[in-house]
């Protein structure tokens, strides 16, 4: 079984993202399943960043520490990750930084410096990179020093370019050394570089040279690794981030308008879509719909209030419409969500959760927006809330969200997070045949006399004709069936009952198996309940714990509104022990569960640091709970 983990660290702007992406591609070419996630500061250039790659022959879906190989592109990375490599693992570092002292690294947070110095001095060491290397040796790491300055000079010479212009290729030097060590063929490294920098010859060439320098050096000095080909060899796959797959899902799902105001980690979704604003129709359908290209209007607005209101306007006019944001932006959308609800406007709001409160840690992750999303908007505003656990889910959920919005004529919140946004996954072909696009009661023609936008119906859902296709009134005030403002108590009651019926329609229309997924069986030693990207680490931890004889069941909540009351209730009743993984301070998931089922989980596993949750954290926490009956376990792995 192949199960490896690789970490590449360096300064923001120093090519950590590209090194990660190239690494992921090379390993996918080698035939493995890959999950990669990037951690970075809210900063453009200089602060520490790293990319964590998981390589498996089964399925890769979470980061893990310690890793099998660390590539430290600068001194800060050496200090920051000196405890992150396993015994016997490789640690690649830059020999030209050996004399650098901890205190001279400007971007490094003070408290971390203090911890590093304390740790080194505990081992009788000083505070230079050389000391850290000694420490690493003492921990049994295999050190692989490369003089990156010299390497870059060589790249410059060989490519006939200036040192400055090729300086960023240091990342590929480090990466390539690690890949050589593992035993990934040079060819894949080259192809990965070509694929990632698609067409940019002036970038590709020096990077290939850089790769070769490191590769050849490792081959000569240490010998190449002997990683066998992975099981996916030969397949056509995709390598995409969570941001990418949500954009893809929306486009495949027939989105025609996306509005956004830039915000981390949502903006990349919109930007990816903007880069694909004209897409080709499937060959077999082009003739049928009479079009070869389809446009997706992606509009940058002046703020999030405009983004949501514009998306609502577009929805009223018949567009399949969405907006994308994060917590702070969503907070600004509350008022309009209430309007979308009473206007019965189908609109999708994607929330890429990041670490709060407030601006908090804008490039870190969390699940802190659950209750805020559920109860967003004043005045009894209802919306559907669906959350995705991984890339596949996110793709299909993006489509579902668009369907539900139009089917139930209601706002739909799609909850995702920064871990998903910034993680890169190898993916197989999506199952297009399983996808249905459902526009509900929409029609572009009206011949039934006066069109009543808010007609009272059996299921609380009115026939929908867009603005522009039948004269009509849309109103944020309580209204008559036509749409006139009215305060008459009986009409009011009828409209409230209409909206309650719609809730029933949603309850009926979204079956239990779309609300929740259960992994493992009820005779497990412990049942874990959670949602979102907690899924990957929990499923991975399940395997590890199973090896140690501990059986885990995982209940993965997919929709919070409507809530999977039945399954959760049964889970509590059948479980010997229940723990909720709550990636937030207030234990919001536990509160939501109790609110809808009355059950309170006796154990909670929490993480606040905003770093992606890791497999070993769950393994440890579960043992802690089973062995010591601890109520609350707080985990905080990851620099």
């Amino acid at each position: 079984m192949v199960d490896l983990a690789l970490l590449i660290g360096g300064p923001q702007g120093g090519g950590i993202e590209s090194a990660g992406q190239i690494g992921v591609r090379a390993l996918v070419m080698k035939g493995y399943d890959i999950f990669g996630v990037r951690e970075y500061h809210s900063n453009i250039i200089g602060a520490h960043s790293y990319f964590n790659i998981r390589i498996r022959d089964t399925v890769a879906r979470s980061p893990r520490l310690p890793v099998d190989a660390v590539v430290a592109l600068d001194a800060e990375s050496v200090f920051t990750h000196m405890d992150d490599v396993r015994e016997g693992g490789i640690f690649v570092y830059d020999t030209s930084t050996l004399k650098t002292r901890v205190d001279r690294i400007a971007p490094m947070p003070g408290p971390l410096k203090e911890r590093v110095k304390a740790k080194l001095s505990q081992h009788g060491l000083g505070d230079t990179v050389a000391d850290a290397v000694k420490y690493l040796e003492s921990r049994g790491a295999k050190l692989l020093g490369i003089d990156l300055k010299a390497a870059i000079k060589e790249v410059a010479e060989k490519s006939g370019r200036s040192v400055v212009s090729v300086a960023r290729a240091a990342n590929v030097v480090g990466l390539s050394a690690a890949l050589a060590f593992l035993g990934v063929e040079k060819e894949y490294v080259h192809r990965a570089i070509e694929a990632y920098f698609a067409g940019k010859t002036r970038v590709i060439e020096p990077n290939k040279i850089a790769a070769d320098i490191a590769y050849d050096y490792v081959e000569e000095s240490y010998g190449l690794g002997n990683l066998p080909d992975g099981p996916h060899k030969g397949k056509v796959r995709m390598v995409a981030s969570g941001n990418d797959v949500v954009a893809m899902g929306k486009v495949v799902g027939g989105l025609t308008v996306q509005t956004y105001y830039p915000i981390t980690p949502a903006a990349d979704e919109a930007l990816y879509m903007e880069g694909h604003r004209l897409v080709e129709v499937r060959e077999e359908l082009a003739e049928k719909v009479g079009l070869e290209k389809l446009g997706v209007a992606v509009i940058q607005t002046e703020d999030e209030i405009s983004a949501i209101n514009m998306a609502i306007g577009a929805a009223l006019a018949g567009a399949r419409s969405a907006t994308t944001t994060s917590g702070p932006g969503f907070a600004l959308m509350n008022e309009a969500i209430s309007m979308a609800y009473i206007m019965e406007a189908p609109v999708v709001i994607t929330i890429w959760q990041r670490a709060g409160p407030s601006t908090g840690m804008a490039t870190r992750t969390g699940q802190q927006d659950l209750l805020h999303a559920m109860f967003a908007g004043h005045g009894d505003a209802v919306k559907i809330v669906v959350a995705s656990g991984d890339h596949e889910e996110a793709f299909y959920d993006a489509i579902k969200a668009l369907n539900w919005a139009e089917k139930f004529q209601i706002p739909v919140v799609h909850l995702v997070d920064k871990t998903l946004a910034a993680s890169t996954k190898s993916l197989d072909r999506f199952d297009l045949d399983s996808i249905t696009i459902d526009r509900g009661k929409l029609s572009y023609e009206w011949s039934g006399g006066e069109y009543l936008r808010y007609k009272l119906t059996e299921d609380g859902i009115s026939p929908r004709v867009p603005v522009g296709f039948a004269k009509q009134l849309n109103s944020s005030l309580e209204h008559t069936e036509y749409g006139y403002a009215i305060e008459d108590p009986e009409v009011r009651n009828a409209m409230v009952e209409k909206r309650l019926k719609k809730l029933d329609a949603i309850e009926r229309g979204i079956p239990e198996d779309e609300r929740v997924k259960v992994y493992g069986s009820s005779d497990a030693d412990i049942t874990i309940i959670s949602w979102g990207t907690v899924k990957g680490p929990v499923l991975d931890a399940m395997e590890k714990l199973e090896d140690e004889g501990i059986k885990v069941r995982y209940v993965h909540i997919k929709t919070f509104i409507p809530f999977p009351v039945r399954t959760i209730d049964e889970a509590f009743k059948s479980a010997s022990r229940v723990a909720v993984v709550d990636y937030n301070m207030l234990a919001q998931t536990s509160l939501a569960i109790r609110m809808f089922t009355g059950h309170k989980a006796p154990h909670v596993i929490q993480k606040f640091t905003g770093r992606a949750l890791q497999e070993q954290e769950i393994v440890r926490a579960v043992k802690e709970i089973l062995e010591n009956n601890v109520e609350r376990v707080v985990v905080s792995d990851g620099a």
Partner: protein
Amino acid sequence: MARSWLEYRSPAWVQWCPGCGNYGILTAAFKAFAELDLDPAKTVVVSGIGCSSRIPYYINVTGVHTIHGRPIPVATGIKLANPHLTVLVMSGDGDLLGIGAAHFVALGRRNADITVVMHDNAVYGLTKGQAGPTLPAWVQTKALRAPNIQDALNPLLLAIASGYTFVARAYAYHVDKLKDIIKEAIKHRGAAFIDVLQPCPTYNNVMTQQWYEQRIYYIDEQEPDYDATIKSPEERSEKVARAIAKAMEWGDRIPLGIIYRDLTKEPFDARIEKIMPGYLEHPPATRPVHYEGKPLVDPFKVFTDRVVQA
């Protein structure tokens, strides 16, 4: 002229106070729509919240009564999705220049083909007469507990600074003059703004009908040479300067009429068409999104930058 303006009257009770300037604006809209023979289904009046913002209930075309300060983004979304509709925003001064000022500015930057009719009574009517953004400092209207300590905005200047390509001022009680300006604004391809001076007899006891009528004059009558239309970029700096000077006239004399019109700037839809060809022919509201429920897009064919051969 196929329709009578009476066809644009809705059956709803018009709930404005007796003598309210909004009645004049309403009638002018009826007449303008009739003279332009606008299709009620394809004509969309979008409003915010306020006395004036109830106007969609009273005009028998498609209406969207949104929330306070947000009619411009909603209208922009409608126009974006379906550029073939005639879209107007009719809303109050508080709505457009107070809470909604960021959107007011943004619409100018986009030059979207939307006509903004501002019912300018210098007060917050529906919330019972607080100071609006166009109420001059130190004025104390009826409902105020102290004189207003914020300066008035000049809506025309703000519109020009924001990039509107049609800027006019009108007066609510002069229905036919107002009607003509509304027609011109609708016909203009781009963001059009009309500041309609609208007496509020209930709360604005300072800027009354009498107050206005002592001050207003029509530019086209008194300065027939005033030419507000920019037909080529070279004319711009000179004509903008003149327009600004005109926009800044306020006090004993208040000019009415078209202050500024720039024909050289493309509207938003034309700009989108440039970066996304086909947009105007198959806009977001109507372009196919599925075929018999099947998706039209194969991600492995379209997002090829993410495809990897293992």
